[in-house]
């Protein structure tokens, strides 16, 4: 066993998956990720601010690197326009969002799960950005690598969502049970015939870095055609923008990751993600020991919202969603404003949700 924190697992996993540059700046509770990156990543740069961070990452990504940063809401908010830029330019990168208590600077050293709805609408136009969320140390390992894979395969920024209690808590952990991580295949266009920066092959354009001199590369954050040339609103350019949405929605179907611990005959199900999933595991375990039949769903692919979750939830008379906010953000994503009567919510502000709290809602 080793005494380890989630931050170390995430950075080691990212590096093994092929991430080779970290752009950082200090922000609690993401500082350990920054510190470990300095020890591990081939390139580690200290940016002067959040906008520079994302711009530097975009530049590095355009040269063929796979850059990473880690931040929390106050920094993330300042990155949003540049993440939109990277999304439009179709540049692979990973942004680790370590949630903490808001609004604004809130409490830097207090965990929270309050940023999911922000992520759902952060790309102008409402286009989805891939979001995967860690719920335990195994996820810190596997989903960090998955983020790199998604970023490279789909040419897109990916958000790895986590929270203070996951990246700053040490646990005894058996490293030998971690699965081997394959390096993501960051393929470059290798044909001699004409290259168009935004001509899709199976929805995703072939990538070429700005550093080669076989083909001209045009990268563009404004509405553009397949060549990458700015257009006002030609059919080709709008088709390109439409493709961005379809690419993520379609391709993320093969990155549907969740844990469904189904109990035969259960009429109730607990749904929880992120840090609260640990309390949910304990709650379900205690309920079962007491003879109560209950299932557990831990969604890990959060955005775009997989319809598969609703298919699972259709089987239950009672759904208890537990997440560390006041407003049931996952419930809103799944059910909109007309939440069904069978849905119950237990939340918390400024403290972790306890297993007892969840048990109470299931009863």
């Amino acid at each position: 066993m080793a005494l380890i924190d989630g931050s170390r697992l995430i950075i080691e996993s990212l590096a093994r998956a092929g991430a080779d540059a970290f752009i950082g700046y200090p922000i609690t509770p993401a500082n350990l990720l920054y510190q470990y990156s300095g020890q591990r990543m081939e390139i580690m740069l200290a940016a002067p601010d959040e906008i520079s961070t994302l711009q530097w990452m975009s530049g590095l990504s355009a040269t063929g690197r796979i850059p990473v940063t880690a931040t929390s809401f106050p920094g993330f908010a300042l990155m949003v326009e540049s993440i939109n830029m990277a999304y439009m330019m179709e540049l692979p990168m990973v942004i680790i969002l370590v949630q903490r208590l808001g609004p604004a600077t809130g409490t830097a050293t207090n965990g929270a799960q309050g940023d999911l709805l922000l992520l759902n609408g952060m790309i102008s136009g409402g286009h989805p950005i891939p979001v995967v969320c860690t719920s335990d140390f195994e996820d810190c390992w596997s989903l960090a690598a998955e983020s790199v894979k998604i970023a490279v395969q789909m040419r897109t920024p990916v958000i790895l969502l986590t929270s203070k209690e996951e990246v700053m808590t040490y646990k005894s952990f058996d490293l030998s049970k971690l699965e081997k991580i394959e390096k993501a295949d960051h393929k470059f266009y290798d044909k001699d015939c004409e290259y168009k920066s935004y001509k899709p092959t199976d929805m995703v354009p072939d990538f070429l870095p700005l550093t080669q001199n076989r083909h001209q590369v045009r990268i563009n954050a404004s509405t553009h055609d397949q060549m990458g040339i700015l257009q006002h609103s030609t059919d080709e350019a709008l088709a390109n923008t439409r493709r961005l949405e379809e690419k993520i929605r379609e391709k993320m179907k093969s990155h549907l990751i969740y844990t469904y611990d189904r109990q035969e005959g259960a009429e109730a199900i607990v749904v929880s993600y992120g840090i609260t999933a640990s309390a949910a595991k304990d709650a379900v375990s205690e309920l079962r020991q007491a003879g109560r039949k209950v299932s557990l769903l831990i969604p890990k692919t959060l955005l775009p919202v997989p319809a598969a979750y609703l298919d699972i939830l259709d089987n239950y008379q009672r759904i208890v969603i537990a997440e560390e906010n006041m407003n049931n953000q996952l419930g809103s994503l799944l059910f909109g404003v007309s939440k069904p009567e069978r849905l119950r919510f237990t939340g918390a502000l400024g403290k972790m949700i306890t297993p007892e709290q969840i048990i109470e809602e299931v009863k």
Partner: protein
Amino acid sequence: MNINILNTDSLPFCKGCGHDLISKHTAKALEKMGLSPLDVIMVTDIGCHGIIDKSLNTHTIHGLHGRSAALGAGIAFGIQEPGKKVIVFIGDGGATIGLQHILEAARLNLNMTVVVHNNMLYGMTGGQSSGLTPEGFHTTTSMEGNPFAGYDICALAHTAGAAYVARVTGIGDISEKFIKTFSTEGFSLIEVIEICPSYGVKFNPGRKLSEIIETSGRNPGEWVNDRTVFSHHQGKKADNLFNRTPQIQPLFSSLLEHPMSVILSGSAGEGVQLTATILSKAAMRSGLNITQKGSYPVTVGVGFSTAELNLSTDEIHFHGINIPDIVVVTSQDGLAHSKKRIGLMTKGKLFIDQSLTPPETGAEVIVSDFRSIGARTASLLAAIFFVKESGIFPMEAVFSTIEAEGLGTKLPVEKIRTALGI
């Protein structure tokens, strides 16, 4: 392979716009330098200058308003291939928005060039004042004349550390100046002063560019810093972060039957966090699972310092502690911080230093002198006292952890043994 930088002579700018001159002379300079178009990465952003992309045979990347210097910096960081040239086009508006990005690239002396198209206003959005608009210059947003002097972008970049900075008037053949700028190893910036034929001329009738330059004190010139170009200064890298996380083998056994939550609560400087790590590893050496987290104010050198631990024979999922089983208090700061949770305890044990007044609690209160061999070891002495009293695992698990962590000579182990009568 195409050797022309531009793919057309007909550029998309207004008649008389200095941007046309800049683009054509940039191309002329690069061609004279013998650079192949695909060894050139042109970074543009929002503003009239940014519509040049489609006329270029180079690589192009078109980003956000004012951010091209930072985007270009990212590209410069990523280039390993020799002979590449990163050129950032930016307007005076963009240079205002992204001033920090220019200064940072200059400070680091990144290998790139920034070309500031200074036509003294935001042209694309209707002729508003920018941070580089000269005093007295009329714009859409300063119809009585700009009340402030503009930034001297050249002086700022030079002061920030740019290897080469030049200012030219956007008239005539400026390609030689571009060649000098582009040939610089490290960060270079060239500011080209022009007048917007649409808004600048319209709002400032009769004013000549030379007179505006003279009045504003932004005369042509060049400034240099003798500097080494940026390179990645990498410290020693680990090829595996787990190498710094040693495996802990269970050499002892534990008598723990049920999960136990422990809070160590003291003051900064009392070794609370280190004690927590020693206790965690000692528990692991005794075959237990643990979770450990710290809590302290942002001013880490003063005030309370608290550590929360969970110990269990089973895998631990939820690691929060509402009502602890054990609290170990070594100082007034620690007592104040944990008082509420101590008050909620209906069972368990409170270990508290004899200098403190125990609060109301349902826990069994055990008072001892934890500060007897100094404040710096108060937390460790108290924690080992707790291990001894509870018997959850052998005290030798703690002492062997101290040795294994290389702390045997740094911590007063013998004094602790004596104080505890072992």
